[in-house]
Each structure stands twice: as C-alpha cells, then as structure tokens.
C-alpha cells in the first residue's frame, strides 16, 4: 500500500461511529422513602406545621418523596433541642467528640455510593461528579474536622476557644450534601450544636446525613435538619435561640439576613454569589486552559458560586482559544445524570431554568453572539445546553449578573493591567483563575485580583484544609482550614 493511500483521510462514509452505550447507575440505591419527616432531637418527626411538599428529580420531573416543611413551631422545637444538647456536647471530652465525628466520616465513606445517587436524583448533578468530587470531599471534610476536634487549643494558642452555642445554618441546592458537610463538620468539631435548613429542592441528603450522624453516635439534638423554603430559613436565622448564623446562597438573601441580624448580637458568616473571572494569557498552555475553563463553567452545570463565568482572554490568542473551546464543547455529553458517561446534567429546578433562560435572552438582545454546540436535550426535565457568548462587553447583563448556569461570557484584554481592571470590575469577589506559563505574573495577578480565591493554572480545586470564602458582595467568613474553625468559636478574634 502506498504511503498516501495508507494515510488518505477517509472521506464521509466508512468512518465508524463510536457511540458509548448508556451506563446507568441504579436509581434504587438512593433508598428514597415516600415520606421524609423533620429530623429533630435524634429522630424523624412529623411537622407541627402539618405541611408537606414534594421534592422531584429535575432530570425527569418525577416525584421522589413528600418532605416535611418546618413552620415556626418546628423551628422553635429544633432550636430548643439544639439548645438543650449544647451543654452536654460542649462538655463532652474532646477525644470522644472527635471519635463520633470520625465514625460519621467513615460511615459517609462507606455509604458514599448511596449518597451520590441520592444527590444526583434529588439535584440533577451528573453521577460522575457526585461520585468523584462531592462525596470524596464530604468525607474529607468530616475527617479533617474530626482531627481538629481535640486540638483546638493548639489551633489557637494562648486563648481558650469556646463554642458559639446553637448554630443556625442555611445551605443551597447546588452541592446539597457537600454544603451540609462544609457547614456541619466545623460547627460540630468546635462544640456547637446545629440546626440545618437544606434547600427546598434538595432536602433528602441532609436528612440522610442526620440519620447517619445518629448511627455514628452523635447525641440527640446535636444535629437537627429542618427542610423548608425561604420562610423556614428566615424563621431559623431570626430565632432568638440561635447564637450564630451561617448562610450560603444568593447575595440578595445574604443582604437581607445581615440587615435582619444587625444589633441582634448573633455572629454571622455569609458565602454568597460570584462572577468569577478566568484570565487566560497568551503564553498559557491553551489546551490545558480549555480544560480549566470547561471545568470552571460547566462543572455542576455552572451552578457553582465560584464558577469562572467571565472569561478574559488575551487578544492575541482569543480567536484560537475560542475555536478550541468550541471544539471541546462538542465533546461534552449532556443528559441523564445517572449515566456514568454524562458530563453535564440537569438544571436544578424549573424556576432556576427560567432565570438562566431569561439572562441568556438578554445577552442576545444586548448584542452578544451566542454559540451552543448541537446537542439533543431530553424531553422531560430541566435542561440548558452549554453556552458561550462572544462579543460581550462589560455593560452587558451577562457580564455583570450571576447566571449560575452553563453560560460563559467571553471578553478580551490586551495588557495585564487591563485584565485586572476588567476582572475586578464587579461587585463580587469570590474566585478567579489565572492561566500563564510565567510564575511571576501569577503572583502579580494574585496580588491585584479582588477575590477570596485565586486559582493558578487550575480551577475549582477544593480541600478542607484550604479556607474558602469571598470579599465584597461575595460575603465574609471562611470555610475550611483554621480560618473556618475560627468562624465557629468565641474568643479567637
């Protein structure tokens, strides 16, 4: 065979297609029950409110379970249980407290497959991410904080760290179990008791966590979980028996909580929205940067507060970079979150899908160019295709407002100074990323970017030892590391 013949491109016909067959995780592993009551004082209980709501699978709109909604009387009961438990939990020998947290961490690890399927069904995230990212991090957070429980005086030498007391925590739906772990693990390790309100669209894994905690031997009342919507959250943060409030969610709600808590004497930490800038310099390894950008904006369908939703590319490589990004988008597999080969799953709720759709329409109306790879979306459920916007200017809504979806706005810059100016031209300040082969430029940028986290040549990397949190309208207080412990202790400054 002649050389040319051996390598002649096979035109059109004849080239085989390789379709990955669906490889679906078993949905029954989630062990979802028909009714899911409140978890107060170490047991499942009927709501005094008498109200129940349905939680659904956003990928199919299938009803999963009726969930108890906590009313004011239930919040009162939960805070009361936590109050009663606080003295015993704080007085428990620290080594015993550590042991029960270690047991909890191990149980989470043992049941990680069940928990991953549960979060995937209740929230719509791809099983690959739940299995490979969420659950390993959940276990890591409990292990890490269990390790601190009997060493707090070494973490803060010279002072006597004391727990806050009863902590009211309100978490979002994007990482249902992981956000619960971020909140619960440090609070318990530092000797507080917890009343946790999961998001109304994803209450199931937090309730399961409470069950597991009881199995691990946590005393009744130490961890209480009360599902509900915004009103339940407002009742919880406003309750007089709560000593500290920790909230993760939107900036708008965060502001309301802060106003409400002013003068109440309650401690507060807020982890709010973001509009992360992802800065690509012309000397960056472009294929690697493409991976980072894809991870930054399509991880969890972009429903990530620290998502790199504004891409700033240096002008000299902008068109080449966008070409590479488009090509890469065509390989993203969008669909059934339970399929182990799915990269992009379902949007969490109809209401959220509406918000994404509205913002994307505004982008088109304001004149930005949209690109979406051809992809077939399922008929039922809430879906949005991976989306790129080019020709975006700073004044467009899609460059300013948090979309919280798989939508990337691409802008360009010429000089490092301009990159910093554009990156910082936002009320937010949660996270940003820098891609360059030049180490000194990374440090120069990190000094100037107004963000709680700056990732260098990577994105969306989390570790329980590394403090995470925002500046400006992205909130205050840190989660993870020694800083994260301080947020749950008195007397440590």
């Amino acid at each position, binding site marked *: *065979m*002649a*050389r040319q013949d*051996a*390598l*002649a*491109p*096979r035109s059109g016909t004849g*080239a*085989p*297609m*390789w*379709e*990955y*067959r669906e*490889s679906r995780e078993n949905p029954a592993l989630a062990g979802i029950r028909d009714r899911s009551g409140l978890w107060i004082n170490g047991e499942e209980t009927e709501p005094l409110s008498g109200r129940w709501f349905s939680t659904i699978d956003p990928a199919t709109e299938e009803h999963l379970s009726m969930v108890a909604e906590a009313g004011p009387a239930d919040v009162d009961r939960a805070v009361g249980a936590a109050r009663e438990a606080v003295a015993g939990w704080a007085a428990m020998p620290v080594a015993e407290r550590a042991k029960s947290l270690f047991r909890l961490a191990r149980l989470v690890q043992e049941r990680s497959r069940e928990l991953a399927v549960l979060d995937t069904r209740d929230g719509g995230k791809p099983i*690959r991410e739940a299995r*490979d990212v969420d659950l390993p991090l959940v276990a890591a957070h409990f292990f890490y904080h269990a390790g601190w429980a009997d060493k707090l005086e070494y973490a803060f030498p010279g002072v006597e760290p004391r727990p806050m007391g009863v902590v009211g925590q309100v978490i979002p739906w994007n990482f249902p179990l992981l956000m619960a772990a971020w909140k619960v693990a440090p609070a318990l390790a530092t000797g507080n008791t917890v009343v946790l309100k999961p998001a109304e669209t994803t209450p199931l894994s937090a309730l399961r966590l409470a069950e597991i905690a009881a199995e691990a031997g946590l005393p009744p009342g130490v961890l209480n979980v009360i599902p509900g919507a915004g009103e339940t959250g407002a009742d919880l943060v406003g309750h007089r028996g709560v000593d500290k409030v920790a909230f993760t969610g939107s900036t708008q709600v965060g502001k309301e909580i802060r106003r409400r808590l002013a003068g109440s004497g309650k401690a507060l930490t807020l982890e709010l929205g973001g509009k992360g800038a992802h800065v690509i310099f012309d000397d960056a*390894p472009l*294929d*690697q*940067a493409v*991976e*980072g950008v894809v991870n930054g904006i399509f991880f969890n369908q972009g429903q990530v507060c620290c998502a790199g939703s504004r891409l700033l590319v240096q002008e000299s490589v902008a068109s080449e970079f966008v070409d590479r990004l488009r090509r890469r988008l065509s*390989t993203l597999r969008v669909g059934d979150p339970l399929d*182990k*080969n799915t990269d992009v799953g379902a949007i969490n709720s109809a209401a959220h899908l509406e918000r994404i759709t509205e913002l994307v329409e505004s982008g088109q109306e304001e004149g930005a160019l949209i690109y979406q790879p051809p992809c077939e979306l399922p008929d039922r459920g809430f879906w949005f295709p991976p989306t790129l916007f080019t020709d975006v200017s700073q004044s467009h809504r899609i460059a300013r407002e948090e979309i919280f979806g798989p939508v990337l706005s691409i802008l360009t810059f010429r000089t490092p100074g301009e990159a910093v100016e554009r990156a910082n031209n936002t009320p937010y300040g949660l996270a940003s990323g820098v891609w360059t082969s030049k180490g000194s430029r990374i440090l120069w940028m990190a000094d100037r970017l107004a963000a709680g986290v700056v990732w260098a*040549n*990577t994105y969306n990397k989390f570790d329980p030892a590394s403090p995470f949190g925002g500046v400006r309208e992205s909130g205050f207080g840190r989660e993870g590391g020694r800083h994260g412990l301080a947020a749950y202790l008195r007397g440590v400054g």
Partner: protein
Amino acid sequence: MVEERVAALATRSIKREAKMWALRTAISMTDLTTLEGMDTKEKVRQLCHKGIRPDPTDASIPSVAAVCVYPNLVGTAAEVLEDTSVRVAAVSTYFPSGQAPLDLKVAETRRVVADGADEVDMVIDRGAFLAGDYVKVFAEVAAVREAAGDACLKVILETGELGSYDNVRRASMLAMAAGADFIKTSTGKVSPAATPAVTLVMLESIRDFYSNTGRVVGMKPAGGIGSAKQAIRWLVLLNETLGVEWMTPRRFRFGASSLLNDLLMQIRWLETERYQSPDYFTRA
C-alpha cells in the same frame, strides 16, 4: 490538567455493543510486536500467522494491522504476510538507542524497505534532542523519510526519556514537520513507556498540526499496553480528542504483544459472559 483530563476520561464506562466495537477495532489497530534479542525466524512466523488469524475458532475476528520485527526478520515476516492485509513493520535507525551515524541509519532503512517492510518505525536521537540540537533531529527524520520511500514512517519519540510534556509536544511537532506519517511514544525498552497523559499531549499536537497544515498524522502508543481495559481507555482518549475520523488503523495503532490475547478473551467474555482459560487462546 493533562493528568486530570486523562483521569476524567478514564472513568468513561464502555459497555456491551460499544465495548465490542472497541475490542474488535483495537485488534485491527494492533501492531503485533516482537523485539527481543532472542527472536527467531520460527517465532516471527508464528506471530505472523497469529496476526493474520488471531482467533482460529472465529473467522470474524479481524487481522491485526501489522507485525513489527527487527531488521533481520523482515524477510521472514514478508514471506508469511505476502498477499494478506497484514503489513510488515520494521524497527530501524539502530533501534532502540538511535546512537549511530546518519548514513548507517539511512542504509538500514533502505535495506528494510528493500527486504519487504511496508512500514518503518524509526527512533529519534534523544541525545541530540535533549541537547537542544533540534536541527539534527529534524534532518535525521527527513533523511530517513526519504530513504523509506513509499513506506509508512513512524517516528518514535521515546517519551520516557524526554522529561516533560513541553518536550513531548516539541518533539511531536518536529517529527511531524519532518515528514512522519505516525508519531509513536516509545520503544518499549524504556520505562515509563506509553502513558495516557503523553498520548493525550501527542494527540493534541496531531490535532494542532492538522489544523495548521491540513496534513493527517497518525498516533501509535507502544509499550506497556497489555490489557483490553487499557486499550479501551486509549480509544476513549482518541475519540474525544481527534474524533471518530481517527479511529481507524490508518491513523491509530497499538504497539503491543500481550494485548491481543486479552482483547480476544474479553470478546469471548462479552459473547458468553464467561472467562475462558488462557489455554483456549493461541500463544505465538
């Protein structure tokens, strides 16, 4: 990020029809290789017959792409493989070290082609490459390219000796620019041999070279790929980097010896849902 991307793609779950297609395609992409000092004509004949008909009990199993041997055994392989679809590949240019004067490398290449090699697997001079003498590396590949005539030229970078992904990419571009038809990871004599991460870097280089020049270059990971599971991971890398257009023996090869029988065993497993004793498969 190279390792992360590779790790993420390694979690692709390839089942049933998709797996069957991959296993059969992998067989058709195999360069069945023997490169031992103790190779004999008899062993090469055995290997050639195995390559033509990998599973004597199942005629639907495709032949391998090529049989790859040392220069001394090219004539033997060519004799057996004459009139079959299986091609004769010869390692050349003082494989595996490449530490010889250029005129000897050129002479060796002419000789293996004259003896019947359809494909020439050459090595680059890693000493010159690491010393920064890219001109020498380029000139050698170009000279061997010319000496190989119509034969398909595969250029072995020996990535296990190159030290960084940047170097792997640079060597890939150099080899392609100098006329390589395939770029190949390793000789199999150095560890690490083919890793998924260097393969990804090379596939990305091929893609960029193609989009800049329009010239198609193939990829051949070689060394250390012994299981069907690994082979499928490589095909996933290929599928998601270069796409189905590249999923043909004309553009992708596995350099391997023990891989073939594992592919056959896995096919049998898919058909019967039972593992059979290795003794049911021929060993060449």
